């Protein structure tokens, strides 16, 4: 989970700026490639349960991952393949979790996007929307109690999750404690099928920031050139001790809610609006326009991403699934306090 790129470094000089954008782009590309692999495995019936992609949200997500450093805390959500990779999560974690390998971080107990490495600051989401934000707060508070400073905690959520009580309680809690929380809302216009106008009535979700007494940042989520500096700024602000901020990025989910969903409800007008731009394409064009890359490099990067993904998939497909007879079936860390009481004459 090493993350070398850091905020302040990349403000001025072009060389490091170029490197930063290329790095971001390549994580985005890897995330897109990985997500597409999962979609393809899903269509082949090789995945148990649902598949959820971050298509169209890679620029925002990667920026969160890149704005964080080793030692920071990150609570990604279902569309954060790019951010997770950039934060340093091994590609194998994703594949193992989707394919139910017993070697994965969740040991096949949990699946698809529900994985993480809490010891390394990467919190494993529970499904209940909004629930992870206060957990980030807790990590940050505990660090403060230990006398640590200079860290940041980021949590990602969608537009729909802003309607949960958990979102409200946690953002308010962070504000009261002045915690270095960066709360990132990917407003992809829909929560499953529900459009913004059935989810909230404020003009912009950014209007929420003042109500919590936190800083607000508004970003075009399709454009890496806004996302990356925006997140770096928000993280730097938090790191400096200035308290929480709310980052609201607008974009469009360029896929179904999950791969089972054809998203027929997405308004055509939205798809053709600027929100409907593919951030990966936008970033690519930008890199080309700047002369920071060329077609040959792009092709090589694509090939490399594909290879990494194929390699990981092939490897994980050979890994063992879980063995129910080796499971201890005890939810407690304190094994001696477990009941093991599924009680049946079977066990007699």
């Amino acid at each position, binding site marked *: 989970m090493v993350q070398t790129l850091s905020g302040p470094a990349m403000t001025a000089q072009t060389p490091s700026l170029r490197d930063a954008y290329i790095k971001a782009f390549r994580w985005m590309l890897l995330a897109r490639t990985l997500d597409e692999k999962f979609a393809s495995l899903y269509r082949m019936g090789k*995945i*148990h*349960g*649902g598949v959820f992609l971050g298509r169209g949200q890679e620029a925002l997500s990667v920026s969160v991952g890149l704005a964080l450093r080793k030692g920071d805390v990150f609570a990604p959500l279902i569309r954060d393949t790019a951010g997770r990779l950039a934060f340093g999560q091994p590609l194998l974690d994703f594949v193992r979790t989707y394919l*139910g390998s017993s070697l994965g971080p*969740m040991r*096949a*107990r*949990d*699946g*698809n996007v*529900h994985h993480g490495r809490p010891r390394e600051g990467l919190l494993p989401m*529970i*499904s*209940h*929307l909004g629930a992870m934000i206060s957990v980030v707060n807790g990590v940050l508070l505990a660090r403060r109690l230990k006398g640590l400073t200079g860290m940041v905690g980021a949590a990602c959520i969608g537009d*729909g*999750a802003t*309607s*949960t*009580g*958990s979102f409200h309680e946690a953002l308010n809690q962070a504000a009261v404690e002045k915690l270095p929380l960066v709360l990132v809302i990917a407003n992809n216009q829909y*929560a*499953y*099928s*529900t459009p913004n106008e*059935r*989810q*909230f009535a404020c003009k912009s979700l950014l209007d929420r920031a003042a109500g919590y007494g936190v800083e607000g940042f508004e970003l075009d989520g399709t454009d890496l050139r806004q996302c990356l500096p925006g997140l770096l700024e928000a993280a730097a602000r938090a790191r400096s001790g200035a308290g929480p901020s709310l980052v609201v990025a607008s974009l469009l989910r360029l896929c179904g809610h999950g791969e089972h969903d054809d998203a027929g*409800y997405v308004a055509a007008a939205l798809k053709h609006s600027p929100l409907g731009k593919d951030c990966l394409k936008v970033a690519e064009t930008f890199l080309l326009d700047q002369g920071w890359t060329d077609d040959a490099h792009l092709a090589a990067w694509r090939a490399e991403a594909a290879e990494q993904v194929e390699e990981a998939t092939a490897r994980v497909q050979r890994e063992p*699934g*879980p*063995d*129910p*007879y080796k*499971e201890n*079936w*005890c*939810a407690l860390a304190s094994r001696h306090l*477990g*009941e*093991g*009481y*599924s*009680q*049946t*004459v*079977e066990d*007699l």
Partner: protein
Amino acid sequence: MSITYLDAIREAQARALAEDSRVFLYGQDIAVFGGAFKATKGLAERFPGRVIDSPISEDAMVGMAVGAAIEGARPILEMQFADFSMPGFNQIVNQAATLHWRTRVPCPITIRLPCGGTSGSGPFHSQMVEALYAHYPGLVVMTPATVEDVYSMLLAAVAIDDPVIFCEHKYLYYHLKADCLPTTAEEVGKARIARPGRDLTIVAYSAMLHEALAAAKELSLEGWEIEVVDLRTVKPLDTDTVVASVARTGRLLCVGESWPWGGVTAEVIARVSTEAFNLLDAPPQRLNAKDTPVPYHPTLWATHRPTARSISNATRKLLRL
């Protein structure tokens, strides 16, 4: 024609909407989209303005339903998954469940909870929650196991003047089929002998009914006549029917997909032991899910919950006791 358990849920809601103008539906993605499971598909078009999308606000969803009920409406809430009813738990058990007892004003709301495990769903999309809601006073908790029941009981739930926790089992949504919708309904609150027998009583409910029936069928090949009781409603719990069955068989195995501590199996066994102790020829037994979250991986999941196989094994052992 073939009607699935899920179709029956939709048809029951369509009928409730058609026959009673006080009924409306509220839930996430249930209007134009027709719900995550399509349990309300087409209803928004057929009943304009009465199938309403809610924000992702389970607490407020329940509060909204209670207020509407005070005003005389009969709302049906859909939680996207039973697991997501927990952020609304407080409003269900403390607001909805206490209203009538405190004020004499009835609270006729129906909360549809897509419950239970399906392969690959994991800890947060698989939970059985009937025991939690049954513990609190003021709620009726239904756990229909058949196409016929899910239809008639959902209609009954809407007609009942109390909050009804309607536990639909997702595993049955597509698997379970019937030729047609029922035209009659069994009495609410009564259990049903799903299969008559004389050697041992298996008490089950929801998806476990079908595992129990499969086990009974298997055991019939070995010459055993197993009686299977479908509880249908776990609160109220029809102790009489269970006791009458135990009176015939002398042996009781109770099967539940939820966790062991304080689940339906505990309550059933406690009641039979206290009320019909002398009818028992052997210790009553229970079979539950293991006491861990519901695992994601299919092979773990299959071991976590009772199955026809584990039920028939348990039954064989109990028959020898």
